[in-house]
């Protein structure tokens, strides 16, 4: 007899009636230990299920003015002033978010969203914002017996994994250490006039542009790798590669790589076999 065959008819068990009774007892009160959370319902329940309790929504933001830098017309090069800007601004946002989590006494921050938004502050000014939910690890989290969830910098771990991915990671015996990112703002060389004229009507690879893309990506990913090595991580999961030109025009682009560095909680990693389903959902 499987679990499903036991009675789970909530109506028969009187569960909705219990819920209404609880609501009828609500009294307006002073704000005490109220938790806030940015997680969706799915994420909220899954995070609780793997043993983490949400403490509060934490957020850090910075309005940043990005300086000017012009690349040399015919050269592929990194625009280091702009790269620095992107790093510095994101770091400000993340540090402030981590400080809020520290103040709540959290073990980690899950579901972090790190975004850049242009608001109506002006050109060259963007808002960098990091939002997540600070969580506290209950004793049974991660299968029990895990002494320390913070990373080697004594900061709460951060993870941009969704609640579902986080649940799967913890069940498989890994713990997140922190978000690692690599960013590179690259200037893509313009084609010379001779080259442009020579390409008319031909199917040909634009080698400079290809090279620029490879170089920019390489720089961004190696920086992300270096951050993961600082945290003594075993690997990086959930990597996203993003490319934006923001407001810089078509020959300047930012390559941004972000992922979550992880470490193993135990030697064996048994991943449960998923059940195959065919959904009747439209």
């Amino acid at each position, binding site marked *: 007899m499987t679990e499903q065959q036991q009675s789970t008819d909530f109506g028969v068990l*009187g569960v909705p*009636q219990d819920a209404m*009774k609880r609501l009828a007892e609500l009294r307006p*009160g002073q*704000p005490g230990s109220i938790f806030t959370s940015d997680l969706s*319902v799915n994420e909220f*329940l899954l995070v609780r299920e793997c043993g983490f309790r949400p403490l509060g929504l934490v957020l850090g933001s910075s309005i940043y003015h990005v300086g000017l830098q012009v690349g040399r017309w015919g050269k592929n090069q990194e625009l280091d002033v702009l790269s620095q800007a992107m790093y510095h601004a994101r770091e400000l946002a993340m540090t402030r978010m981590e400080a809020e989590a520290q103040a709540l006494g959290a073990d980690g921050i899950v579901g972090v969203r790190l975004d850049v938004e242009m608001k109506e502050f002006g050109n*060259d*000014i963007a808002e960098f914002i990091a939002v997540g939910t600070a969580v506290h690890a209950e004793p049974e989290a991660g299968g029990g017996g895990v002494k320390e969830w913070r990373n080697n910098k004594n900061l709460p771990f951060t993870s941009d994994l969704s609640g579902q991915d986080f649940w799967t990671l913890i069940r498989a015996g890994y713990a997140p250490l922190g978000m690692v990112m690599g960013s590179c703002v690259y200037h893509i060389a313009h084609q010379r006039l001779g080259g442009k004229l020579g390409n008319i009507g031909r199917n040909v690879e634009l080698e400079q542009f290809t090279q620029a893309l490879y170089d920019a990506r390489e720089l961004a990913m190696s920086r992300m790798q270096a951050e993961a090595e600082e945290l003594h991580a075993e690997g990086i999961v959930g990597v996203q590669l993003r*490319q934006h030109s923001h407001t810089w025009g078509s020959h300047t682009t930012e390559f941004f790589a972000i992922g979550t560095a992880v470490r193993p909680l135990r030697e064996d990693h048994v991943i449960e076999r998923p059940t195959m389903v065919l959904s009747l959902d439209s």
Partner: protein
Amino acid sequence: MAEIRGSGTWSSALSADEFAAIRSVGFEPVGQVLGAAVYNVGYTGGYSCPGAWAGYGGYVTPYRSITAVSGAGGMGSYNALVKTMYEARHKAIDRMSAECAALGGHGVVSASIEIGMFPAGGLEFKAIGTAVRAPGGVPLARPFTSDLSGQDFAKLIMAGWVPAGFALGISIGARHDDWLTMNQTSWGAGNSEVVGYTDLVNQGRHDARQQLERDVARLGAEGVVVSSMDMRVRDRECPMQEHRKDHIVEVTIIGTATVRFAGPRHPAPASSLAIMSLDPQRRQAARVKLGS
């Protein structure tokens, strides 16, 4: 209302999936409910700017100004407008709850709050949702309201949580553009954080979060699951000093306040099941996205 109650059949805007989810936890849909309020916003506050300094012969720009948020009140704050925003939304939500109670329901799910221009003038606040009831449950003086879909509602009930109501955190903050800000935003400024705007944005959101917690306490609930956090920025000519601007941020946080309940009859929550869908479109959507 009497006609709907008397008729015995219910109408609802729920999809078949939502309907099935709600029934699976023992609730029944009762009918569609609506609450509305049309407001004329005549007095907003914010008519002066506390950031500009009074100097000889007029107002001058300070080096570093202060941020005034609506929650703190004080001269030049927009707290009248924020109070109106709250009042209008609460009226619409309360009227929707009242319709739900009149139909014998215990609460509203899938509720949405819409704001629009009313054709004859004024701002219209509408709250629409589907009322549900727990057969045999105690009638509630204030039925719960939530923007959760039927499926999310069912998931919470299964885990032992029940929504208590909408929680709103609204704040409007204003800041005079001071000398430091203008230096940091000029085209030759290089890489720098714009301290003034960062302060404005942080204080605005902080105040909105505090207002959200107060709203949750007003309901007597234990926590809130935030569904949207929205920030709008605009500028205005400073009312105190010519040729200078102030920046205004308006932060709106909407969430569902929740409360734990546990009866002795509550079945132990089944642990989540890892599934792999055989539907090719779902597996596509789960892959890592490259590019912008």
